[in-house]
């Protein structure tokens, strides 16, 4: 994905976060969020391998072999950070103590179902912590490209791939649009500058309800 697209999605996700929120960012695109936290907003990031309060990547040569995030990348700890074991880490997640989790997706549907952990017959990397995160976090945000490499919609009426969790997604933020999962269906709230509502509808297999105050 182009850098400006990534940055735009990251910046839009960051707008959802409030001062003092506890947040877990998935591997890949979701990590972009950390680069766009507004000044004056202090968000505490968890990495599920066992730290609350992660800091930026260390300078080259400053890496500590015992300091990685859930993606295996080297990290630092900010003042106020805490280390804990994996059971406590997933207790934080499953127990509803995280304000937000942001994850990528292979597919998401209008019922808030998410599929992001396997493609039968192709890759089976395992669900890792994704099922716990989507089940437990107070708010689940999906961050992804609106369509796949072949141009097929990733926003569907019903997911066809094995689910990560059922009915847990609240907000979908893509390069084209921002959509909220509501009891009535998928509410199109924002359309990115270079696209029209029609572009988004055409690129979306799911049924969209157009918000009255569409931005």
């Amino acid at each position, binding site marked *: 994905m182009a850098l400006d697209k990534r940055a735009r999605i990251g910046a839009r996700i960051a707008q959802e976060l409030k001062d003092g929120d506890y947040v877990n960012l998935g591997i890949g695109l979701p990590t972009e969020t950390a680069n766009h936290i507004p000044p004056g907003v202090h968000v505490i990031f968890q990495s599920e391998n066992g730290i609350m309060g992660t800091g930026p990547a260390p300078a080259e040569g400053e890496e500590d072999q*015992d300091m990685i995030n859930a993606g295996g990348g080297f990290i630092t700890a900010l003042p106020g950070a805490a280390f804990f074991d994996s059971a406590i880490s997933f207790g934080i997640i499953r127990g509803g103590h995280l304000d937000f989790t942001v994850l990528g997706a292979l597919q998401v549907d209008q019922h808030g179902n998410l599929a992001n952990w396997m493609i039968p017959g192709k890759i089976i990397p395992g669900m890792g912590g994704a099922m716990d995160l989507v089940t437990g976090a107070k708010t689940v945000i999906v961050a992804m490209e609106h369509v796949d490499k072949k141009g097929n919609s990733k926003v569907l009426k019903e997911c066809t791939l094995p689910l990560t969790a059922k009915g847990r997604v609240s907000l979908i933020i893509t390069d084209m649009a921002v959509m909220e999962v509501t009891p009535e269906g998928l509410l199109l709230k924002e359309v990115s500058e270079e696209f029209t509502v029609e572009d988004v509808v055409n690129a979306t297999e799911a049924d969209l309800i157009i918000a009255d105050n569409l931005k």
Partner: protein
Amino acid sequence: MFKQITAAEAAAMIQPHSRLAIGGFLAVGAPEGIIDAIVAAGTRDLHMIVIASDWEDRGVGKLVVNHQLKSAQVSHTGTNREIQNQMNSGEIQVELVPQGTLMERCRAFGMGLGGVLTPTGLGTVVEEGKQIINLDGKDYILEPAIPSDFALICAHKADKSGNLVFRKTARNSNPIMAMAGKITIVEVDEIVESGELDPEAIVTPGVFVDYIVVKEA
């Protein structure tokens, strides 16, 4: 009270079909010296319980590459191409377990519990064949405890009473796996005198520790 042994002596205790609960995440906090000794011993048909299958040349990935596993319960296999090959060919039977559920199932065994009730996996393939229990209007999956014969873990320091402290994100699953084995073998950087570690800072009390291997420099 624990006994100090070598990595080779630890590996010699492990027999074919042993069930191994191994600490570490993406090879950070993995008991590399004990894993290397098991590779050298060549013991086969092992069952592995671990968060991730690590890399081909680091952590438990070395046991996969050396064809020593017949089955495994893991959360993440994405960093190890060889385990994917062995899963596809049927050489290794893998149960994929959500990471938080894996921790609680291991912890349950160590804590004397038969299992745990979790919402994680509801409405997914994880619930297939399992009992769903409704409590106060909410559904949970009954996930049974995972037993293991040996817990193989890595800590930063032990004192002479077997108490353990860990270092940064190398703690990860190690304190959980420490409780989950019938026999627990710990690899440490060093053993210090009893009293040198602050009793308030002990993460794993020595009662869980049976054997200690000091990491070779």
